[in-house]
């Protein structure tokens, strides 16, 4: 019996296993079969992963399709609950029924931790998590997403809105 380094005896091998070669051939048969197994590689830039509705991607502001107005009433709850202080909201008055709207709405994507608290706390279902997981920026200024990048029509967010209706 060979010493396996820690003074204990290794597992007892049968003579067949001690011959090395039968077991090596067994191992090789396994790797040979592996040659023909389906491959898991995703060819990324061409083939992109579409996440399921549970996925918490980049938070976005929902815009109603009919009126083309964002749902947000600038209550500031999201900014309040945000654990990483990524959200900044500045309210202003409007003639519309909702009376208030966000004059400025910024999410610093370098700070955002995708926890989804903003979505959870929002009374208007105005900020929700999208499926977008591809964010690149080359400096910290570009990482602050303003309203231009955040506003998204509700028709593009159907999956998540449906999901929220069912599970929230």
């Amino acid at each position, binding site marked *: 019996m*060979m010493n396996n380094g820690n003074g204990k005896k290794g597992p007892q091998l049968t003579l067949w296993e001690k011959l090395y*070669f039968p077991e*090596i051939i067994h*191992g*090789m048969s*396994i*790797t*040979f079969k*592996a*040659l023909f*197994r*389906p*491959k*898991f*590689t995703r*060819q990324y830039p061409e083939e992109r992963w579409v996440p399921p509705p549970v996925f918490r991607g980049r938070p976005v502001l929902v815009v109603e399709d009919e009126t083309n107005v964002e749902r947000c009433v600038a209550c500031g709850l999201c900014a309040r609950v945000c654990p990483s202080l990524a959200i900044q909201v500045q309210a202003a008055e409007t003639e519309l029924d909702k009376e208030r709207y966000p004059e400025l709405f910024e999410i610093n994507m370098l700070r955002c931790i995708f926890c989804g608290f903003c979505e959870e706390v929002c009374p208007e279902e105005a900020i929700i998590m999208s499926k977008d997981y591809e964010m690149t920026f080359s400096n910290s200024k570009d990482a602050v997403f303003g309203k231009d990048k955040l506003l998204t029509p509700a028709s593009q967010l159907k999956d998540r809105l449906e999901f929220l209706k069912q599970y929230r």
Partner: protein
Amino acid sequence: MIVLVPLIKVIVVVLIVLGIVSYLVLAERKISAYMQDRIGPNRVGPKGLFQPFADIIKLVLKEMIVPENANGFIHALAPMISITVAVGALAVIPFGNYIVIGGQKISLIVANVNIGVLYILAMSSLGVYGITLSGWSSNNKYSLLGGLRSSAQMISYELSLGLSLVGVLMIDGTLQLDKITMAQSAGLWNIVYQPLGFLIFVTAAFAETNRLPFDLPEAEPELVGGYHTEYSGMRWGLFFLSEYTNMIVSSALMVALYFGGWSLPFINYAAMAPNLAALLQVVTFFAKIGVLIFVFMWVRWTLPRFRYDQLMNVGWKIMLPLAILNLLGTGAVLLAVK
């Protein structure tokens, strides 16, 4: 003419083999990927077929760093020794029988010396110098350990390698590789007579080429990169090329000694036009090499690495006695038959 023909043969063989080697690297990456449920390189050119060119351009353009306090001369010399020895061993490999150009027979061996097998053994022994010197000259403890391991490993496995070959040499009674091939094309392949010798030879060949499961000289988890830790750029590339060239040489040796070389059963080359026959022989020879190299890669991506004491135990306590046993058995049978 006497100088020119061997010169052309040398150039052709070196170019072909180095071309094959660069594609072997791609093949290995592809095979390993497929065994791990991946796809492997597929971006450079159609299906990744131009990957070797990208690799080589990258290696050539990279800076060759020589560590401080390293012995610069030996550091530069070591990879050259490795590649020279690896390519040099190709000189006695019979790639085919002969071709006829302008009514002249030209044999498809660069140098048909009468001690071919001995020459290859000598060359593969010299290969240790490249690795050991590179480990020693790098001024790095991991490199040194890798170099020492490889010298110990190669010296212990060379014994069983040489002894396992003697069985074949006793059967065919010659050291000339093309005569051994001829003898096999007339009768049965030597693997039928020498299955045990073949197994010992394969195992020792794995150790000689530093391939898994015997790649202790470059065991990444323990030794960083082993003897080539301090190498970069084309100097590292030369070690890489010599590893794959060594694989070709040992596969070619196995084909020539045990698998009938360029011959195929039930095919009579003598009945064909000599040049067509030569072409077929070369294709056959390389196809057989290809299969064996696939086995090399297959084993590498299947088996884990041996521990150092296990390596030495297998080499001295199992392989060497078995090789001697094989030798005695072969001798006894030959004595009884003749």
